[in-house]
């Protein structure tokens, strides 16, 4: 399978000298691909055929939660009424504001939080937001704290977000059981501790059952507890970060709430906080408006509908997105949560955890850490990347590889609730067939994919990042 670059198929250089502007304000021209629509359609159709999505088969990437993305959520996001400009007046976009308010409310309930911002456009942006909130909170309280503690097995974004917010990162080694070493944590906290960032279940799929003690340790030191929502799918309806003692958290709606990953985005990373932190949320927030007319102070418009207004929280950190986040993704999130409701959310975690456990029971791999929930980390026993490439040949997407490093040659596997038993059996066969294959078969894999094994080191040594770079060769 091979598809030429658009520019190799047709390209045209166009002058701009007849522009309605003085010459010195314009460029000479541009050269761009010039396909007719039939060619355009074939180009992207062929490219799509060289791409693997959730509807192509199992996609058990650990920590990524590649679940089924219901198409009706696309339909509601495509409603023309949703296509509004962000600078519209409050009165004229009551529909948007109502949806935002309701979604924030649902997320708060699900996370056990008191207030939620929908502004962060991704999980990492949510982390950054949460840490800025912690920072503002400490500053407001006259505490100059410089450190964020993060378990070494945490997602890379935790470290990067903390650093972006100007914190030093204190990395916390895991205990032998793969969980937080509470004694080590006790030793690590200090007056400099701004927050501990934690994923629960952690990246090994293990629940941090000492979470209450952990929270006490951090809180006693004056720090805050940050919950990385990447693994929330495991706990839906069964445990809430707020009830565990977390003060601030983000939700990955493109993981837990099934908005499509889109090849890397867009997602959204709403952030929930406890009441004490609500004044620090980004601006604007949305709340029910108190009606002038209603005596009882309840928010209601003339026709009995609640009306909504935007407001700036008292100590707001400001903004983390130029406008109000990835709106269309939020619409999809709302629709998904509405579809599931309480029973569906609770069944989601049940089946996500069942699927991980069932899959683990069907494969012949060492899984050093248990009891895991929505994901497990198997040890490949040989090069995990090679095993993964070989699994591609068996028609499935492989797990996340070589991470977390606490497991040797890790295959971090999260099937999600969306896989049927038959799909899991298929996946298990791919695991076991790869395990049984020769080293040579593994090293030369994949052989049935659009491209064979790609030399990424070489690509990085000699970066060619545009078709212009190819031209120069």
């Amino acid at each position: 399978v091979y598809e030429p670059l658009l520019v190799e198929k047709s390209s045209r250089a166009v002058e701009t000298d007849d522009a309605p502007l003085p010459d010195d304000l314009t460029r000479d021209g541009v050269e761009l691909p010039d396909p007719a629509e039939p060619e355009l359609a074939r180009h992207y159709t062929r490219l799509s055929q060289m791409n693997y999505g959730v509807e192509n088969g199992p996609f058990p990437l650990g920590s990524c939660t590649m679940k089924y993305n219901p198409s009706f959520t696309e339909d509601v996001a495509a409603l023309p009424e949703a296509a509004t400009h962000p600078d519209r007046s409050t009165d004229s976009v009551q529909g948007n504001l109502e949806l935002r308010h309701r979604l924030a409310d649902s997320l708060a309930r699900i996370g056990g939080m008191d207030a939620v911002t929908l502004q962060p456009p991704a999980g990492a942006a949510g982390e950054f937001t949460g840490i800025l909130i912690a920072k503002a909170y400490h500053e407001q309280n006259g505490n100059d704290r410089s450190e964020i503690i993060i378990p070494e097995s945490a997602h890379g974004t935790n470290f990067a977000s903390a650093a972006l917010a100007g914190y030093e990162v204190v990395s916390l080694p895991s205990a032998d059981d793969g969980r937080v070493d509470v004694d080590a944590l006790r030793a690590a906290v200090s007056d400099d501790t701004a927050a501990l960032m934690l994923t629960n279940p952690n990246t090994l799929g293990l629940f941090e059952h000492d979470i209450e003690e952990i929270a006490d340790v951090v809180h006693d030191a004056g720090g805050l507890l940050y919950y990385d929502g990447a693994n929330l799918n495991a706990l839906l309806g069964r445990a809430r970060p707020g009830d565990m003692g977390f003060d601030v958290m983000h939700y990955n709606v493109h993981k837990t709430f099934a908005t499509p990953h889109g090849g890397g985005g867009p997602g959204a990373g709403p952030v929930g906080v406890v009441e004490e932190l609500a004044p620090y949320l980004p601006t604007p927030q949305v709340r029910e408006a108190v009606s002038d007319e209603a005596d009882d102070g309840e928010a209601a418009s003339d026709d009995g509908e609640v009306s909504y207004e935007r407001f700036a929280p008292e100590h707001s950190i400001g903004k983390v997105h130029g406008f109000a986040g990835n709106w269309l993704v939020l619409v999809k999130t709302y629709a998904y949560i509405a579809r599931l409701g309480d029973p569906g959310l609770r069944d989601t975690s049940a089946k996500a955890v069942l699927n991980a456990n069932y899959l683990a029971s069907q494969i012949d791999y060492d899984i050093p850490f248990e009891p895991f929930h929505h994901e497990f980390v198997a040890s490949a026993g040989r090069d995990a990347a090679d095993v993964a490439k070989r699994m591609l040949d068996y028609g499935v997407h492989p797990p996340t590889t070589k991470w977390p490093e606490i497991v040797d040659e890790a295959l971090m596997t999260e099937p999600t609730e969306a896989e049927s038993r038959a799909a899991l059996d298929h996946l298990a066969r791919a695991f076991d067939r790869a395990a049984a294959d020769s080293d040579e078969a593994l090293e030369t894999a994949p052989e049935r994919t659009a491209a064979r094994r790609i030399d990424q080191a070489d690509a990085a040594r000699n970066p060619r990042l545009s078709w212009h770079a190819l031209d120069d060769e």
Partner: protein
Amino acid sequence: MEGGFVSSDEHPNGGRGSPFAPHTAAETTAMLDAVGVESEDHLFDIPEEIEFDGTFDIEPRAERAIREEIAAMLDRNHDLVEFLGRGHYDHYVPSAVDHLADRSEFLTSYTQYQPEVAQGFLQALFEYQSMLVELTGLEVANCSMYDAATALGEAATLAVRVRATSGDRVLVPEHLHDGRRAVLDSYLAGTDAGVESYPMDDGIVDRDALANAIDEGCVMVYAENPTVRGTIEESLGEIGDLADDHDALFCLGSDPVALSLLEEPASVGADVVVGDAALGLGAADGMGLGLFATREAFLRQVPGRLVGTGEDSEGRRAYTLTLQTREQHIRRERATSNICTNQAWVALRAAMHVAWLGPDGLVDLAKESVTRASEIADQFDAIDGVTAPVHDRHHFREVVARTDREASAMKDDLEAEGYAIHAIDDHLVQVCVTETNADRVDDLVAAVEAVA
């Protein structure tokens, strides 16, 4: 096939709790047996004290009911013809973009960590990068940031990194979208650098004032073309020289439509180009696509994903994410950015849209953006009580007008008539025209006449 009939009420939805978890009751039982536990509840290792036994009070609704519910909710939005811009532009999205981008192989795929089964998306992103390289003249474009504001923030942190020893100030224009300014502040919150504004001269950069403001403590000078008020800058080369003279980076804000016609950033000395690249998306309540391009010299400081070409084991050209050692999942706290999930699918749509337009279509759109701004300024200027354009400059897509009446009152009156415009100061309004509202300009002008 399972034998025997069962009552259809016995296992509604086949015994499924979630419509998106395929397990029938029988399958669940079999799987629990295989695992060796009695129920799913036994698989959770959650201390009793923190187990959640409440309810969220969220009723599950049927697909059809939700579609009606959301449609009804959004129907509360007033049906206004929008003449709004200021960083978020509504360009017509061709149907082909919708249909092709919605193919599930694109829409539901992940970041391309397994490039052998992601060649399609990688190639599309490579093409997106290439289009921006062509439009900016810079050698490197990443394959997306969240939006223009966060791209600007990333540009500033890049400037701080590469100029770490020499400065603590980022200079931005007096006329700057509030959101961009606020996000820039957030991104610099973790650094020692601060943001300062420099004055404008009748809508564009005041070169003398900028020359006064700039010094060796400045790590980056930011300017926009067009500006947030739609004016076209006239001295970009000089701004670039000023920045260069003071060893500051020159960061230019723009967008793909403007870039196809206005001065090429590389040729005026831009070190970084940021902006909103969100073609292919339309009005989306502020959701966007952050453009980020820079010089090859800063390649290893680029935030976000980069797609490059390489070869597969058979020597064929192949695409892959590259230079990942810049990124958070490898470099952690020393990464060039914390970005992970980005706006890849929007970048795909933007590339599709640019390809659909072709160079003629894109340049035509840019030319029309100039003439439309000029025409609506003339029409506004002909109205009693309105002067336009406020700035005696060339304009792109949008223009500011002065109103005798209070701007916000006029804006409210127009809203009652079905039109949305910006009121940006006591007596300043701003309007933006694209192909999606051009046929309603005459109606707007008539409405303005009535309320001016």
